């Protein structure tokens, strides 16, 4: 098993000390077989620079914490193998989201805002009866809901989307997909008009310009093109026909 030196070029900036301008810092470490950006960054922090900020939680492509721009593309750092990248590995924080420091960004606040704006919860007048048997649902419907629910809110689709980069209020593919999740859910009793109010505008469905960076970059491989189009068509029907 061979090892070689790998160079990392990493974005550095702490918004708490604005007098120190952003810069790129280089680190060289030994690359071991099976090394991911997760293991590499931890190695850099533990051996070379304990001040380096970045986020990981699950390190298994489940939680969505570790998205960053790796050699120009938004990806999950934990499932990116250094061996798959050529040359110097350049790491930048995701754009759009508020920078916390170095590679760490505040996706949490952004996504919580998104849930509030899209009212991303089941709207129903039914009361829960703990003693009743659950309502039935076709397994196909359950899987369809889950297909949209799989989004891990990593922000790759937002960071890669030019529209989201220039329009602060754009909900992005993750937001539109989130609404799609509720539209296919028979438990949600929202009317077409209510949905239209939420995303029947340039902040939602009509703001998307089909740039497809979302579809190309989603680490969960959500079918974002068809989800966006589905919502767009629904909004057309809701807006024109009211149903």
């Amino acid at each position, binding site marked *: 098993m061979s090892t070689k030196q790998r160079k990392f070029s990493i974005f550095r900036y702490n918004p708490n000390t604005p007098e120190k301008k952003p810069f790129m810092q280089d680190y060289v470490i030994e690359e071991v077989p099976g090394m991911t950006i997760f293991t590499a960054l931890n190695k850099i922090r533990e051996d070379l620079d304990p001040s380096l900020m970045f986020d990981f939680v699950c390190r298994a492509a489940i939680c969505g914490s570790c998205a960053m721009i790796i050699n120009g593309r938004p990806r999950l750092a934990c499932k990116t193998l250094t061996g798959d990248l050529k040359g110097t590995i350049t790491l930048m924080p995701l754009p759009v989201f508020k920078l916390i420091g170095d590679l760490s960004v505040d996706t949490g606040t952004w996504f919580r805002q998104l849930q509030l704006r899209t009212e991303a919860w089941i709207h129903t007048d039914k009361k829960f009866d703990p003693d009743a048997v659950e309502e039935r649902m076709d397994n196909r419907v359950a*899987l369809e809901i889950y297909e949209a629910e799989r989004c891990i809110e990593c922000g790759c689709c937002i960071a890669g989307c030019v529209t989201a980069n220039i329009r602060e209020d754009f909900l992005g593919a993750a937001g539109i997909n989130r609404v799609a999740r509720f539209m296919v859910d028979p*438990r949600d009793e929202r009317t077409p008009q209510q949905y239209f109010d939420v995303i029947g505008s340039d902040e939602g469905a009509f703001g998307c310009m089909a740039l497809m960076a979302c579809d190309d970059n989603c680490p969960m491989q959500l079918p974002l093109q068809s989800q966006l189009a589905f919502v767009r068509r629904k909004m057309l029907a809701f807006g024109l026909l009211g149903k």
Partner: protein
Amino acid sequence: MMNYTVIVTDVLVAGAGLAGERAAIEAASRGLDVIILSLVPPRRSHSTAAQGGCQASLGNCAMGEGDNTDIHFADTVKGSDWGCDQDVARLFVETVPKAIRQMAHWGVPWSRVVAGRKVLPDGREIEDKKEKEGLITARDFGGTAKWRTCYTADGTGHSMQYTVDSVVIKLGITVHDRTEAISIIHDGETCLGVVARCLRTGELRIYLARATVIATGGYGRLYGASTNAIINEGTGMSIALDTGIVPLGNMEAVQFHPTGMVPVWILITEGARGDGGYLLDKNLHRFMPDYEPVKKELASRDVVSRRMIQHIRKGYGVDSPYGPHLWLDIRHLGAKHINTNLREIKNICMNFNGIDPVKDLIPVRPTQHYSMGGVRTNIDGAAYGLKGLFAVGEAACWDLHGFNRLGGNSLAETIVSGWVVGRKVAEYARDAVLNYSHSLVQGFARKQQERINDLIAGRLGKENVYQIRREMEQTLMDYVGIFRNGPDLQKAVAKFQELHERAQKIGLRSDGKWASPELTTSLRMPGMVRLALCISYGALTRTESRGSHAREDYPKRDDVNWLKRTLAYWKEGADLPELRYEPVKITELPPGDRGYGESSAASTGGNKANGQ
């Protein structure tokens, strides 16, 4: 002197995983003001990683027919090796079906029963009935008499966490994410809240509440190899321990899984061995038949794990920068089988290791998986020792799991205990009054500030925090793993005592300002070592084998002397926990034969009890 920001609320929940959020919802929907603190945004909590499922005796699917709460109860008690509190287990099994349905009402899609005939991999034919179609279905899990594990495709924890969080958002519950509780404020009798550190700015804040709930999850990451998220460092348990009055229960009960993939320790499911995979050593020799001629790789999880470690200790491990490991070989199963039936394994190998199990060997080693121990509470979730302090979820020792948790019972625990305990928290908080002295409260924050200042100024010493951490992780792996014995545990305890000393003398290498990650770890380090001491010292003292606690020198369960729960206290300035014991509550099912495991008469070698 500087005063710290004080935030006052009715109920404070530290931890936004399933357990914490579920408890918060219960309190908020009873009209109380609730604030949740979390290291990360709620939806990034480790609960989302649970893919397998959640147990509830709904009995809807064909293989679950006839299931009921009594069978679930018996499975749970046997799984715990009679270490659990049976009144808690009873309350749990009775509530789970309701909790699952409530999740469905809130939005978890749950996979549903599809009527029709099916053939199982082992050739058995079953039929799901028409009248059950569309109800919540279940899958098979270890240690259960019926198929009882409800799931949502391959993302059960994810869909549950997202749904529960959607209710939190709907109710407008305040969440302060990137905020770490670093100390519990109390006056010796009552818990008043916590001192928390902002992980955006490094600022300290004081949160005061009539009731405080610890829901901070497990401590898996004390071990060098764990399937857990890297934020699972047991901080909630250690701040409870630091009060000196709140005990941790059964910390020696730690669950392992045989095949975590090196070096990322992501779980490789048992399916790989179930379908015929081999374990090989550094000479590519298939060693399991040498130890277990009959069951080979398919002996029980704990047995396989123990044999693997034994073999590594003999020097047959494959050396790697991440420590010695063994190989899992599924190449002989063929590309077709691997690419269809074992696709998940293939994806994990490709994504996280760049290896293709069709042609390559998979590096594996037994890996820490779940912590049964935690903040000891009564059946209402109230922590021992302090009024107004509660604990739920993996952080708590409620005690549903005793010495071994059943797969699928921990997700179920989070929503059940969140519900039950949340109600008790609300009842308590409604009647309680927040009575505190300003100087006492500020003093707690000041004490933390002093630690921080000392670290930043480099006044304590020059120890490297990451070095201490690595030694702690390694020692736990080497001496307090799956396989335990007196001399090793002794070594571990001595090592941790040394590390505990050194952890007081950490010197930062960065400036430690703002949300410095090095400072964050340094603040946690002494507490983590104390937890490691609770685990190892508890294990050293418990001279029997029970559930996951397997002593080579005491291989039998000893109900005469050890049918009791360990309570670990930490007195300020001590270098060892003080251990006390309390009886385990047996109400319905007296200790007996589990029906599996090595010491069982009816052993088939297939210990199904250690589910995911």
